[in-house]
């Protein structure tokens, strides 16, 4: 029984969820609260990965973060490790898959806050930032937790972009999703079945909790 790919998937998904949360909540907050030219474009850029072919996304990552790119080169000279074809690349791939889910659902949760409460906070002396942190964010708490669970579930199973930018290196970037593919190709059905069962179980449990969280949010 191969546990390595599963543990690697958890590790990558956990780190990816943290990054998707930090960037995703910030982007969602901007999209939900500020009106400025180019806002719709930002919305499109951050949600496009939901429908874009993984190969296309992977290509963009290779171009933007590859060893010869400006960012990729800078990262490598700072840390000594390249982004592509390493664990870092697998995290980037998972973040790209998870981010749109965070942006979409956190934005919805933030926009559901009664605007009068935010205005009341402002009249009581709160700056826009304080009103966001003390009123809007805590009231959207359930939606945010739900979106992070979705992000984790999505990160756990990324295949296409991970394969494109991180490869399928056993012990380094071979996550459970990739290992399942390899196991099936090599007729190691038992290995595949075990990992499939674990991933399925986790995703079902997470989605069940997400359903509970968002259902109670809609009917307080």
């Amino acid at each position, binding site marked *: 029984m191969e546990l390595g790919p599963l543990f690697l998937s958890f590790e990558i998904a956990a780190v990816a969820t943290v990054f998707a949360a930090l960037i995703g909540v910030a982007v969602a907050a901007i999209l939900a609260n500020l009106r400025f030219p180019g806002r719709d474009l930002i919305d499109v850029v951050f949600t496009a990965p939901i429908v874009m072919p993984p190969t296309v996304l992977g290509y963009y990552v290779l171009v933007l973060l590859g060893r010869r790119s400006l960012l990729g080169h800078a990262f490598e000279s700072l840390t000594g490790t390249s982004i592509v074809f390493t664990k870092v690349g697998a995290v980037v791939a998972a973040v790209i898959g998870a981010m749109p889910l965070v942006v979409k659902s956190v934005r919805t949760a933030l926009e559901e806050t*009664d605007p*009068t*409460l935010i*205005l*009341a*906070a*402002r*009249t*009581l*002396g*709160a*700056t826009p930032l304080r009103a966001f942190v*003390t*009123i809007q964010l*805590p*009231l959207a708490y359930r939606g945010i937790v739900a979106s992070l669970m979705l992000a984790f579930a999505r990160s756990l199973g990324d295949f296409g972009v991970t394969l494109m930018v991180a490869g399928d290196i056993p012990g380094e970037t071979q996550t459970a999703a990739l290992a399942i593919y390899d196991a099936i190709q090599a007729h190691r059905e038992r290995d595949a079945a075990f990992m499939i069962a674990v991933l399925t179980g986790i995703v079902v449990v997470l989605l069940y909790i997400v359903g509970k969280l968002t259902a109670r949010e809609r009917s307080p």
Partner: protein
Amino acid sequence: MSDAALSVRLALTPQGDAQTLHIDVAFDVPPGVTVLFGPSGAGKSRTLACIAGLVRPERGRVALGDDVWFDAGESREVPIHARRVAYVFQSLALFPHMTAADNVAYGLPRDLPREERRARAVAMLTRMHVAGLADRRPRTFSGGEAQRVALARAFAMKPRVVLLDEPFSALDAGLKTELLRELGVELAALRVPTILVTHQPEDAALLGERVVFLEKGRVSRTAPMSERPFG
């Protein structure tokens, strides 16, 4: 306490929504209670929103004494949080995730120590006869209790202007009269420019010192309450 009057001159055209009308008003609010009286849809709430800075008028000037909050000509606009306007919304807008004490403490100066904030909040709740609610959340409040907490929150911030947007519309008559009387006592102690929006003559007569009649977005008449403007 100061004797600065609130001067309101503003114009606002509807944006996109054909249901809202053009507002063009000018009136002054000296310290004490001025009633903004008119039928539903006359533009009362939007006028209040402009005074507090929640909505930006197209033209006009809003000032408290020499302190100019908004001047379209000079592109001057003081942000909402710097105006120190107590705004009691029709929905009350109590923060559902905070206790009554935290709601009231929200508007207190942030440099106060935590115990001091708590003590002041509880003292204000006590004045409004709802000290027992200090550690409870709004979900558990009755209509009258929620009104009292909302008023406590408004007065605790030591406002320079008080705006009351039909805060008692959801209450039964007996409770409303009782609350209006208590509110009158608090407002008399505070003595700052206060606007009470209502479309009920009895509320206006109970609390107001002056009435500004608003009709279809314009001031149709202004009268002191001593002239018995409602006949």
